[in-house]
């Protein structure tokens, strides 16, 4: 009986791996360089600074860097944190600069360039998969900004 139950459980696990449609549990994290004097912030503040607005304290110390090095990561960030399509988001960023003269959010298509900017500027923050943030000892994970299953 016990052997049958184990076999059944094993089959279920195998089916989940084989037919699960590539669904994967992921965590999206906000990171800064390990020596950054930046504290965790609310998800609303993450959204504020990535829309080019000041955070709820009124300061503008954190410099947000856009991470487009992974299309899936970028899409999840926009959908789950910013709540906008890429087209609307990028147009909104330009519109904000055009209207106010505020600084434009720098977007990085290369992970290497992004990590280099993060290392050089302790005031800068960005977002990435937790799996990437954890393996880099030069980075500090400030907080998880979203987690859930993503279809890959």
């Amino acid at each position: 009986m016990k052997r049958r139950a184990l076999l059944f459980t094993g089959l279920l696990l195998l089916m989940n791996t084989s037919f699960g449609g590539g669904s994967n549990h992921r965590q999206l994290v906000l990171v800064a360089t390990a020596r950054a004097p930046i504290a965790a912030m609310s998800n609303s503040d993450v959204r504020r600074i990535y829309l080019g607005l000041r955070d709820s304290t009124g300061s503008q110390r954190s410099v947000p860097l856009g991470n487009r090095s992974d299309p899936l990561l970028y899409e999840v960030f926009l959908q789950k944190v910013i709540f906008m399509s890429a087209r609307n988001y990028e147009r909104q960023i330009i519109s904000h600069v055009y209207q106010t003269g505020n600084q434009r959010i720098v977007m990085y298509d290369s992970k290497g360039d992004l990590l280099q900017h993060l290392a050089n500027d302790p005031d800068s923050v960005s977002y990435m998969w937790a799996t990437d943030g954890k393996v880099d000892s030069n980075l500090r994970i400030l907080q998880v900004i979203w987690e859930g299953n993503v279809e890959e």
Partner: protein
Amino acid sequence: MALLFVMAAPVAYANGDYRELLFFPSAHAEYSTHGGDGMAPRPGLAADVFFASSSNKFRILTEALAATDDVHLERAQIGFEFSPKQFLWLGRFHSPLDYWNTHYNHAGFLQGSVHRPNIIEYDGHGGTLPTHASGLLLAGERNLGGGILAYDLLLGNGTKLTEKGLGPVGKISLGETSNLFARASFRPDDTSLTQYGVFAGQTNFATQLASLDDVKQFIGGVYAYKVWLSLRITTAGFFLNNALTTGGTHSTSRLLAGYLHADYELTSQWTGYMRYEDTLGARDDGYLALFSDFALRRGVVGARFDINPHHAISLETAVIQMPGGMSHSAAIQWSAVYP
């Protein structure tokens, strides 16, 4: 132009100073039954260059437009941030009227449609309202009940009225001509794009028309910009009181004008849009009679295709009721933004 890009490429410095450059080129061809040349295509090219620089608490914004028929300095302003989110500006600005005037203006790529609503047409291009003003502008925002209350208060040097339409006054002459504008807007959620606003303004024009001695215009209005997922609504209503003096005779006329514009994202690249514009009391207005291109009513339908994040093609058709009769137009436009 290449030199301009090299000199003014976006730069951020370690001390927080930065500079930004945006370049909005566009090209369009329009077919219209209005204007006397039948359905002959009217091509046009335009390049709008925006530059911003920030150092310490000072900020400079400049914007210039070069088009096939004109060259304009749209904005040239220097501002001091005297407290967080509060600026005092000196220079030439977009007048704080509705959402369209301050958020899109000459950045054709941002506005989506080929044409602006007629009531907010550019003052140097046949428009009836002073869409630009020079002087002092106090602008800021405050947190209010989880939202953001923003305000603008402008004391301007005035606007002149000539045979060619409206334009800036060349010298400081607050006694003879002036603009005074005030606007307040509210964003219920400070991370949302949705906002509602009210505005009011008084302009004493410097007239250079033999037929008019004096024109005073009061503008009042409300606007809203609302986003629901794929749908964006931009709307505004204007009340105008135009007081004219001719040879010692005074006349006053009042009118209402407004528009409702809807953009809907059909796919990741296609956006459809519609706009309805209307006026009430405009047909007999002595001031509007000075502007031959002012439309009493207009219906616009269009589609925009975003080729990539920097380029878009828009197709637009319109039915327009002019004081002299109906006209039709069709336009195609390429617009872009760099970098």
